[in-house]
């Protein structure tokens, strides 16, 4: 495995982990992430 491949794998892994955390947070908050306007998302963002 060359260096470029390793860097790409690490970058993709980081992106996937961030996407997974963001998706989990959205689902856990009860919102869907589709509008960010319901109280579920509001609960996390009190200061607008």
């Amino acid at each position, binding site marked *: 495995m060359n260096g*470029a491949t390793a860097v*790409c794998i690490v970058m993709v892994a980081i992106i996937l982990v961030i996407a997974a955390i963001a998706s989990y947070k959205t689902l856990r908050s009860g919102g869907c992430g*589709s*509008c960010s306007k*319901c109280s579920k998302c509001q609960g996390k963002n009190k200061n607008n």
Partner: protein
Amino acid sequence: MTTVALVGNPNCGKTTLFNKLTGGSQRVGNWPGVTVEKKTGRLRKRNDVEIVDLPGIYSLSPYSPEEIVTRNFLMEETPDLVINIIDASNLERNLYLTTQITEIGIPVLIALNMMDIAEKRGIVIDHNELSKQLGCTVVPISALKNEGIDSLINEIDGSLMKTPEHLIFSKDIEKSISSISNIIGDIQHTRWYSVKLLERDELAQSKFKEDLTDILPVIESLESSKDDSGDSIIAEERYNAIGNIVSNIRTVTLKEKKTVSDRVDNIVTNKWLGLPIFAGIMFGIYYISMTTVGAYFTDWVNDVFFGEWAIPGAREWLENMSVDPAVIGLIVDGIISGVGAVLGFLPQILVLFVLLTILEDCGYMARICFIMDRIFRRFNLSGKSFIPLLVGMGCGVPGIMASRTIENDCDRKLTAMTTTFMPCSAKLPIIALIAGALFGGSALIALFCYFLGILCVLMSGIILKKWKTFAGTPSVFIMELPPYHLPKFMNVVKTTLDRGWAFVKKAGTFILLACALVWALSTFSWDLTMVEDINDSMLAFIGRGICWIFTPLGWGGDWEFSVATITGLLAKENVVGTFGVLFGFDEVSEAGEEIWSMIGPVLGTVGGLSFLAFNLICAPCFAAIGAMRREIGSWKMTGAAVAYQCVLAYVIAMIIYQFGMLIQDGTIGIGLIVAAILAIAMGYLLVAKDPFRCLEKNNNTGAETS
């Protein structure tokens, strides 16, 4: 921290004022019931003041769950100040709530909103005199035009210590209130609870269950002396007092004449013209967004941005760096192709959002509810059920939450489980893909999906109301039609960008993960070696295991469609994203001959309609199922609702395919016979007598006879 609650009638401008006070961008709409839960924000440049936007309420005797949110907040969390927003063009009805708020004993500041509309109608209000009469500061404002907001903010501190004066009722009523106050003792909000107990308010009665034996004789004594019920006695007194106040502070300089809104309403809410006008407007909206302006930009994003720049550029760059082909496959064919296939539809969706927001903002959407009430009522549903459907056009989750505005428990549950039949923004890429690939981008396909959604809601209304769980007369639909106004440019831009950004965010989270997973499953075999032929992959194995289920629907022959449908459960955009990974981006983005040659032999026009219908009606994404669970209240019933949606989707898609093939090719087979039986069974369920309605009729007849 000082807490300031915004309280007022529905559609009096609370959320508009909230946005002005906090600098926020909460969704506003020109129809009642946009806010169903409280929202909080900090006052501009004042971090020590928290502003709470509460759902609209006509009185403090709530009927629907979102009204209970407001009452509970006022009574249990007791804010430091209530800003009571009053529609200056409709004083009497708005002051009815004010007279109740002043009884709580919390300091009140009154924002006399919509002064511009009142002025246009020749209504002059002496706000200083109103302030004297109510014992609290009154500030005339126009939240929409940003007038008087600074004066209102300046009055907040001064109003914090000012307790308003409550109404003084006639002597005998005051005597009864005093007796009840003595019974319940010195508690917080004693007078308010005493009045509510006199009104026989159920929530108040449940709070003072133990004292009821002493309280009831007091109420009965007053009721017998006045020969009326407690709540009517109090309401009459309130309206008399309000009448006196209004006659002292308001003068009308212009003769009442038909406004522009009235004249427009005569046409758009006309018994015969209303529905065709609605259909025409929706066709126009989809025509502009799907076929003309939106399609032009979508073609550019797909063909040029992704097709010529992003995908070939990324591939070439990675190859030049000698990155492993498997990793290039994951990044280019998996992530960029999958997410790109979804993002390619963003321009069409943005154009659609702009047009829908204009319709919402100008006030036409409220008229649609009014038009639909006439139709919905024939199908055992209330026009109120149409509000969640409208909200659900953006996203199913807030749509399901909007069902809280319905008082009747059965109607609310029924609406929550049928809201997702409407095409939400996540389903639009599927519609655009099928319309573009198989029907030359015709806007009629989008209109078909729209009306298919409404048809499914109506059919469900008829069928499910025959079950005990949903039986009952639909909720009474009373809705104030707000005056039309020109859409606010910034509101349209903000709402569109909010919705568009949310779509992009979802593509970067749920869709990205799903595309990576689909790529991995379609690239590796069970022994985790890369496959040369996609048909040897894990995904193909899984797909072949389930695709037979969809054979009667016309698209079970090729496993890709079954897999796309299943990944759509995570998020509906995944259906298109999965095609992006499985077929390669170019074929999906080129919504023409290329994809036609790929999916044409499998789907065909009839199969395409069947695929579209199934994906529109079947179980929504997981987030919407979670929202359904919260509104319905039990996993068991939510499971039943999801099963119902899947079965209905299957039956409708099968009927479309089998009868479509009969018309198109004259194909007759076992599938057609089953579809015919299912169609007859569905017809029977639709026309069979409603046992509960018959029972109700019999009871009513019995009551009349006796």
